[in-house]
Every structure is written in C-alpha cells, then in structure tokens.
C-alpha cells in the first residue's frame, strides 16, 4: 500500500477530501479488505475528537419521523388527538417555523403568541423572523413582514447597549454578496423599515443585529459582534 493511499485513508476519515476523492476511497475500501481495515483504524483513533461537538437534543418529532420512515411499531399504541389550535397559533405549527427557531423552543412560542395577540389589526404576516442571541438562542426580536416591501422589527424585551455603541440592523439574501444595512435600532423600540431599495424579501433571508459604533458601521459592512440573528421563513 503506497504512502499516498495511506494518507488518503487518514484524510478520508478526517473529512478533508473532495467528493471525487471520497468516492475513490470508498471504491477501494469495497475491493480491498486491508485498505478498509486501515480506514477503520483511523476511524477508531480519531473518534475521540467527536466529543468536542456539543450534544444537541433532537426534537421529539424526529423519532416519530424515523418510526414512520422505517414503518416501526409505534411505542404508543394510541396517539392522543391534539386539541384544535386557536387561529393565531396555526402558523406557528408549521414545520418551517419550528425549524427556524430551533433551540428557542417554547419560550419563543409563548412570546410570539403574545405578540400576535397584541397585533390583531395587522394583516397576517407573510414572512416571520425570530432573531435569537447566537450564544444561548434566547429570542430577542421578532420581524414581521406583511408584504415583501416592508418589515416591522418588534422587540421582545429590553436590551442594554453600551453608551458609545449602537445596534445596527442588517439583511442578506442567499444570493447577495454582502449584508446591507437597514439602519440603526434603538433598544426596546419598534422599527418599520421599507425595503424599497432592495429586491423583494426571500425565504431564508438572513437578518441580524450587530453592535457597532454609535454612528453606525464605518465600513458599510457589519464590524461588531452579532447580538441577534435569524432567517426569514414563510408563514401561513
């Protein structure tokens, strides 16, 4: 076994190979038991590094989905019928919505429910973004967009900003080269932002609030740490 193939075995396990190189290693493993054993040795030796990734509990629906996929007998013979939801909660039940808030979980649901109840005069939003803190995923702001031309930034609480700093609001769609500033935001205050100068709002569009100098970013790009971040999801 030459040195190059040994190195490929190690880097296959490490993860640095391209799709084509990975296929070549897998093809060789299928034909060459000694080579497959060499790859397995690397798997066992590098496995302890996997402990560096912080565990994340999957949502309960993932096991239910697995049971359906594999057609397993369900642990619960009788599924309880859920009570019908009030109208303002139905949107929150969409899969896309839950995926977008990820770790924010029930706290976000409760807060969002409260926001929705306070805003009965607004037409149903077409896009919703929950901005969460990157560290602990605590929800801090909600963005509602009742059409694709304007967004409402709604605080869910108060947020301290150092005296010489300001919060700057940014957005970036997947196919844009760089984030675009939507202006400075006063902590704890609502903000309506027209999107006239930008293309229409897109699903998955990124929104974030960063900490910048008091007069805003000097470069026109985010320069400070992200305080809150989230992506737009279509809601029912």
């Amino acid at each position, binding site marked *: 076994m030459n040195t190059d193939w040994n190195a490929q075995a190690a880097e296959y396990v490490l993860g640095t190979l391209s799709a084509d190189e*990975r296929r070549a290693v897998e093809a060789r493993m299928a034909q060459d038991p000694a080579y497959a054993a060499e790859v397995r040795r690397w798997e*066992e030796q590098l496995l302890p590094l996997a402990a560096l990734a912080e565990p994340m509990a999957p949502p309960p629906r993932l096991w239910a989905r697995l049971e359906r996929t594999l057609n397993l007998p369900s642990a619960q013979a009788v599924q309880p019928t859920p009570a019908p939801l009030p109208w303002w909660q139905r949107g929150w039940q969409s899969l896309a919505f839950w995926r977008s808030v990820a770790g924010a979980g029930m706290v976000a649901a409760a807060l969002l429910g409260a926001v929705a109840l306070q805003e009965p005069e607004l037409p149903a939003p077409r896009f919703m973004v929950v901005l969460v803190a990157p560290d602990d995923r605590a929800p801090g702001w909600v963005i509602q967009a009742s059409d694709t031309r304007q967004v409402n930034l709604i605080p869910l609480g108060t947020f301290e900003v150092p005296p010489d700093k300001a919060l700057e609001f940014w957005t970036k769609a997947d196919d844009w080269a760089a984030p675009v500033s939507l202006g400075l935001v006063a902590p704890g205050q609502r903000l309506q932002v027209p999107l006239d100068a930008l293309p229409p709002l897109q699903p998955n569009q*990124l929104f974030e609030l960063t900490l910048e100098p008091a007069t805003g970013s000097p470069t026109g790009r985010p320069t400070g740490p992200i305080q809150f971040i989230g992506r737009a999801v279509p809601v029912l």
Partner: protein
Amino acid sequence: MPPTDDFNYEAALQACARGDAAALQRLYQQESARLLGVVQRMVRNLPWAEDLLHDAFVQIWQRSGSFDPAKGSGRGWMYTVTRHLTLNALRNRQQETARETAVDEDTLDVLDAHASVQGWREAEQDFAWQTSTGRMAGCLEQLEPERRVCILHAYVDGLTHAEIAQRLGTPLGTVKAWIRRSLTALRECLQ
C-alpha cells in the same frame, strides 16, 4: 431516558439486525443528541442536520446486519455511518455550488470563532473531555497550536483544506502539509 455509561452498543446493533425496533430506540435515546451535535457542527444548518440524523439512523437500522463487532466498536460504527453520510452530503453539495458563496462569511466567522476557538479552549480545560478523549488529548497537545486547529477544523467543523486555509489566512499548500504531518504525528503518538 438519559444516556448511560455502560450501554452495550454491540448488543443493541445486533438486536437491530434481528428487527428489534426497541433496540433502535435505545440506541437513539443513547446517542442521538451527541450525533446531532456532531452533524450540526459540520453543516451549521439545523433542519439539514436533523434530516441527516434521520438518514443516519435509517442506515444504522438497515445496515446493522453488516456491523461486525470483531472489526470495531458499535459506537464507533454509528459515528462512522453518521459522519460519512454528513461528509458526503457536504462535499456533494460543494461540488454543485461553492459553499463559500451560499453562506454569509461574516456571520459564520463570528459563530465559528465562538464555536471552534472558544469551544476548543473550554474543552482543553475540561477534565471530562480530557478523560473521554484519553490519549488523544495528550497527542493533540504535542502538535503546534495552528496545526492542532487545522485538525479540529477538519474533523469537528467538517472544513476542506481550502476552507481551513481561508479561515486561517494560511496558504493552501501549507495547510495540506500541516495536516499530513499532523496525522502522521498523531498516529505515531497514539500507537
């Protein structure tokens, strides 16, 4: 049911091979949170990470008959299945569209700086990690810090040579050489 230290992965996988769905559920309860953490760290997209974890457990169930305890640990086999499913998905997608252009580098840099560098520093001081990683921790310590970061960016964050070079501001050839030499050094240290 929380994960337990004395879980018998091999017996559970062999039970899966006999069609015992309760054994798969025990494996899921034991390892799904750790595996989701591994996948999410690499793909940084929770809906996608959940899809991949789902697919990994489908494979674990369907391929459990091919698990051979003589060739390695049951837990290691589950990580192998899950990591390579994830790496193949990442690399196949990169072949279609360059991942660098599909994500916001500024955002990722901030999140990664937290996740990787700080995570590593915390883990370095974490006694539980030191014991769980055993000799690996000592062998990693012997690598120069920038080379150690390359290995961790590759294995834990799922980055390619080019992505690591870009992240560290180091020439691609240097990163490739560092990684090759580090792997050789790790193997010598671990043997």
